[in-house]
């Protein structure tokens, strides 16, 4: 059997139909509707505040009634976000949020499920679950707050901490080679992969908006500042003054241009990316690599380039369509019902052969 793409999707499940109706029915909601009554408890100045704000802002866009939205998190500072969303929320255990989300979505395809996680929660203890939820194309939106540190436990190295980083647990510097979250997501066969930044509110909103509308497994890396234990981790390229020069904002179908003066770009030399300047030795936009969200090879290349050698790519790196886990489950269930008809418990219990013992 070859794998259906969304094009040739199995019929929508009854639940999904209900969603559609609700979509129509729903009264337009506002940001306020998504603010819970709980007092927000992050350190003053934490990047998490902005991510929360942008999340609350975009929620109304999707037309989902708020009771049909669920935020599931693991443990970490990031993990507190669900308490602040006036939706259904589940603050689970360290590293396992994606597993609960998988079961929830399988049981309730009508729900919109967001997973909030941190670089330790998602990539250290939770790495394997991330991998498998993504490959199954579970229709969940994993938002990973990457502050390159363990915040809640007060500052140990995470899988994204730079080599040699001095932390409480590595007084002589870490000796662990960091992993690229985007490369991992790619190997995990996630169907949408993106990156954004806590302080780039507009870009973050647009990214979350894309994410909210995607069907299938989503992995978003949000570069986040932990001003207590890893202040300025991303500053070199995210600061207002430098960001245009040091970040590459991706747009599907558009050449990869960056720089304050939009005069620099990425070109493939053979199959290797290089930075070129438009106008210099006759280089024009036509020479630049055009971003294709459907191309894993480009996605891989983008997942490997980073400041200071290259501008840091942000935006949607990859977007592929595949039938989702819940669609496939529903299809199999309905197919079974179609073939085997309605529930006949009696027949089920009898199974194969039976015999009578007369009274």
């Amino acid at each position, binding site marked *: 059997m070859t794998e259906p793409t969304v094009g040739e999707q199995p019929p929508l499940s009854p639940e999904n139909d209900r969603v559609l109706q609700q979509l129509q029915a729903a009264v337009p909601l506002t940001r306020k509707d998504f603010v*819970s009554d*709980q007092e927000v408890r992050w350190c003053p100045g934490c990047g998490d505040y902005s991510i929360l704000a942008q999340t609350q802002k975009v929620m109304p866009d999707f037309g989902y*009634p*708020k*009771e*049909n*939205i*669920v935020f*599931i998190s693991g*443990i970490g500072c990031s993990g507190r976000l*669900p*308490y602040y969303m*006036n*939706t*259904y*929320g*589940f*603050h*689970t*255990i360290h590293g*396992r949020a*994606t*597993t*609960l*989300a*998988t*079961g*929830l*979505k*399988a*049981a*309730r395809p*009508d*729900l919109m499920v967001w997973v909030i996680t941190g670089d330790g929660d998602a990539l250290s203890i939770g790495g*394997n*679950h991330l*991998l*498998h939820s993504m490959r199954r194309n579970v229709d969940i939106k994993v938002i990973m707050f990457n502050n390159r540190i363990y915040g809640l436990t007060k500052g140990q190295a995470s899988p994204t901490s730079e080599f040699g980083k001095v932390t409480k647990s590595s007084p002589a510097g870490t000796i662990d080679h960091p992993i690229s979250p985007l490369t991992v997501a790619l190997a995990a066969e996630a169907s949408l992969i993106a990156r954004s930044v806590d302080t780039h509110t507009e870009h973050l909103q647009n990214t979350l908006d894309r994410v909210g509308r995607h069907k299938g497994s989503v992995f978003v890396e949000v570069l986040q500042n932990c001003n207590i234990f890893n202040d300025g981790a991303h500053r070199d390229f995210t600061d207002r003054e430098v960001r245009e020069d040091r970040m590459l904002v991706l747009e599907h179908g558009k050449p990869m241009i960056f720089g304050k003066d939009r005069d620099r770009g990425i070109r493939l030399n053979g199959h290797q990316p290089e930075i070129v300047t438009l106008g210099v030795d006759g280089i024009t936009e036509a020479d630049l690599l055009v971003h294709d969200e459907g191309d894993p090879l480009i996605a891989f290349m983008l997942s490997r380039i980073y400041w200071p050698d290259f501008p840091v790519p942000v935006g949607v790196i990859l977007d592929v369509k595949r039938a989702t886990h819940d669609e496939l*489950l529903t299809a199999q*269930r309905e*197919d*079974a*019902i179609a073939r*085997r*008809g309605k*529930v006949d*418990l*009696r027949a*089920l*219990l*009898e*199974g*194969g*052969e*039976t*015999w*009578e*013992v*007369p*009274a």
Partner: protein
Amino acid sequence: MTTPIKERVVDVQDLERVTIRFAGDSGDGMQVTGTQFTRTAAVFGNDISTLPDFPAEIRAPAGSLPGVSGFQISFSSSDIHTPGDQPDVLVAMNPAALKANIGDLPAGGALIVNTDAFTGPNLQKVGYGTNPLSDDSLKAYTVFEIPITTLNARALEGLEMTNKQVDLTKNFFALGIMFWLYERSMDPTLHWIGEKFGKRPVIAEANVRALKAGYAFGETTEIFHTHYRVAPAHLPPGTYRNITGNEATALGFAVAAQKAHRDLFYGSYPITPASDVLHQLSGYKHLGVTTFQAEDEIAAIGSAIGASYGGALGMTGTSGPGIALKSEAMNLAVMVELPLIVIDVQRAGPSTGMPTKNEQSDLLQVMFGRNGDSPIAVVAPATPGECFDMAFEAVRIALRSMTPVVYLSDAFLATGSEPWSIPNVDMLPDISVPNRTERTGFQPYARDPLTLARPWAVPGTPGLEHRIGGLEKADVTGNVSYDPDNHHLMQTLRAEKIARIADDIPDLEVFGPERGDLLILGWGSTYGAIRSAVERLQTQGRSVAHAHLRYLNPFPRNTGAVVQSYRRVLIPEVNLGQLLLLVRARYLVDAVGYDRVRGKPFRIAEIESEAIRLLEEEARP
């Protein structure tokens, strides 16, 4: 040529009970043979009990000891509870099978061997210096030497088959012999062959011929002078089927979900001996059952909790090592107070232990294997058929009290089988669920005054949006709370909620005198052996009773009274004394344990003699 048919007279002997063990190489199809004999005996109306014994290896080298596969069936005209301590008849298809099993055959027992397999290499493989058939090492038994392989090959002559294929049918030749020997009809098996090999007529024909040839062989040759009759048992009237514990488990949960009007979600990771529950349930999609093979045990239970959070009946299943991995998430379920079923089909530990062997040694693990005080409900079926009932009970309790429930089966129950009187599903009660849709006055941790269950407010319910999690909860509101007194209160409430389940379960039943010299208290798959031993002891006129716990947490209300009503209390367990610890701690009775941790069920005789030892020993000060 086939053996010439000639009339002959054989005397018939009536027996109450017979135990046969089929033993051969993994490749010899002993499980099929045993299952066919079982079905036939069952359909005929005997009471039956079976014990398959698989090798640990998928396929150990042919003819090797680790490669021996066995299947024991006991069938009777009266009510029986165990597959029998020892076989009356041993069918040994090769030297390895003989060597591995002869020790269990009592003197005078009948031994049927396939002489063709007793070749030099095969004998060496298992370290037989001389051929046991030729030396007199077997003189204690009634030996029937039959060249099964050659006879069977002859019977199949002319069929378009490889020698290997032909050889694969010799088990049916042996089966045919046994059918003749015990006056059984070949029809059920012939019918089965038709169904199974319908699409491969040659194979079907071959198996039919093998079976009939074996039967004819019994009928015509001189070597058997008697054959035996085991009359039907007087089982309670009803429609019966043969069922294994894993089958009954899957059915029980599937039916319970229907009665609770909830979709069943089963998240699991394969592990012996629990995998078959996953396989079974994956065939119930048309009942709205969703099965999910997770990446590991943690993901499996995580997905089940997620499904329960969404309003489904979330279930997970595994064996001991998997429970260890699930314990952190089980604790989350305790804290968020969601219904959850955790199936533990126990096997021999510790660690990887002996994966295919039986043990009941996870009781303390499921009671206490979580950080903090984490009360959880525990039930355990006692027989394969009862797996259905206790599965139903597990669901009822989980939904009534909004709690995880551990369902403790084991390898012996899982693969063993017995005749099962099919319940009338329409008579089964509906299972009610504390789900909540009313907005006004909703509080996530408000409690039912009776059960202390919190409301089940599932996502999608307008107006009930709320947040839950693993941090301590404030009473009623469910908000995160670090208040010291609140924590103590919640600790007490969680414990009390589980304790109150006792209001809703049947008392512990006693088989035998209400008070007396000795109570034998058991749980799980030791039921059959204990009950049989107690029956024998009682017929000897001894003052011995049997009580068997199906509810292990909480205990039935009358448990204390029961254990305090006898001079001595004996608790036989296939572990080093786990229920024993709980009973002594709770009731301060000087109960003693009896442990034989050998990866297999107890023998009736060993429990019987231990009981006698205790009875005759001085009562302790």
